[in-house]
């Protein structure tokens, strides 16, 4: 990990990887979306609304993965003082917040015809909404702290403490009686028929690649902004 502590070395790798991730992400997402909208059959119980699953699940996965990344980067920032850790954490936040919002919005749109309500204060929905608010708080805190200098500790501590919400989201459907269905997909088994499930790996991988590209773009922007600030400071001092 410390090999990439040098921003110049990181940028040399990040530039081509960004283009690759964008290309792969667009192709895989397009295959998954066309499959989910036009090629898979409707569900025998939910009808056409089952198609929403193929964007809702990747959004939930990326919303939670984003904060996992923030927690790991925050730990690296506090323990090893890795120079790119803070940059990575700040770059993850807007992408994670966007996908947490998409997860909430698509879930709500699915809930209206399926449950008969746009919103329910149950464990899964509420803990996901809390995650979205945590992202908003993290972005505000990290922006304020960045202006004061690179040695701030509040944002990484907030990033670590906020990770407590991740197991709450995951286990909420087991711990409480919720309107949200239980786990239907795991690494080893699924209760969804293969005819309905096949577009999901495409949208999962496709949106994950696009998420990765956005994070790299934001990291590159942050590093360029830091370079400009350093040069202006040096010019002012001369």
């Amino acid at each position, binding site marked *: 990990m410390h090999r990439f502590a040098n921003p110049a070395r990181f940028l040399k790798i990040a530039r081509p990887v960004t283009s690759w991730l964008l290309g792969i992400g667009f192709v895989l997402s397009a295959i998954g979306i066309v499959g989910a909208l036009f090629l898979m059959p409707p569900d025998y119980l939910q009808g056409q609304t089952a198609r929403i699953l193929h964007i809702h699940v990747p959004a939930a996965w990326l919303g939670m993965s984003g904060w996992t990344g923030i927690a790991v980067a925050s730990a690296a920032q506090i323990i090893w003082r890795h120079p790119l850790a803070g940059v990575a954490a700040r770059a993850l936040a807007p992408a994670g917040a*966007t996908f947490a919002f998409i997860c909430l919005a698509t879930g709500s749109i699915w809930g209206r015809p399926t449950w008969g309500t746009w919103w329910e204060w149950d464990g899964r929905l509420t803990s996901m909404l809390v995650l979205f608010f945590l992202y908003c708080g993290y972005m505000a805190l990290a922006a304020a702290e960045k202006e004061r200098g690179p040695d701030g500790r509040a944002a990484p501590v907030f990033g670590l403490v906020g990770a407590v919400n991740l197991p709450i989201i995951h286990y909420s459907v087991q711990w409480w009686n919720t309107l949200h269905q239980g786990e239907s997909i795991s690494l080893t088994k699924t209760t969804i028929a293969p005819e309905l499930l096949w577009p999901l790996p495409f949208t999962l991988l496709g949106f994950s690649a696009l998420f990765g590209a*956005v994070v790299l773009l934001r990291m590159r922007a942050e590093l360029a902004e830091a370079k400009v600030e350093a040069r202006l400071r040096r010019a002012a001092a001369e």
Partner: protein
Amino acid sequence: MNQWTFVFAAYAVALGGTAGLIGWALASCRRAEDRATRIGRPQ
């Protein structure tokens, strides 16, 4: 209640949000890197 209305609304939110995020990230990166190149160039 036409279920397709909900399906297209959900996809519009997801694709619009993702496209907006990518567009913003691309624009902000290009702007910042162009500025860094401009300032780094000798006057």
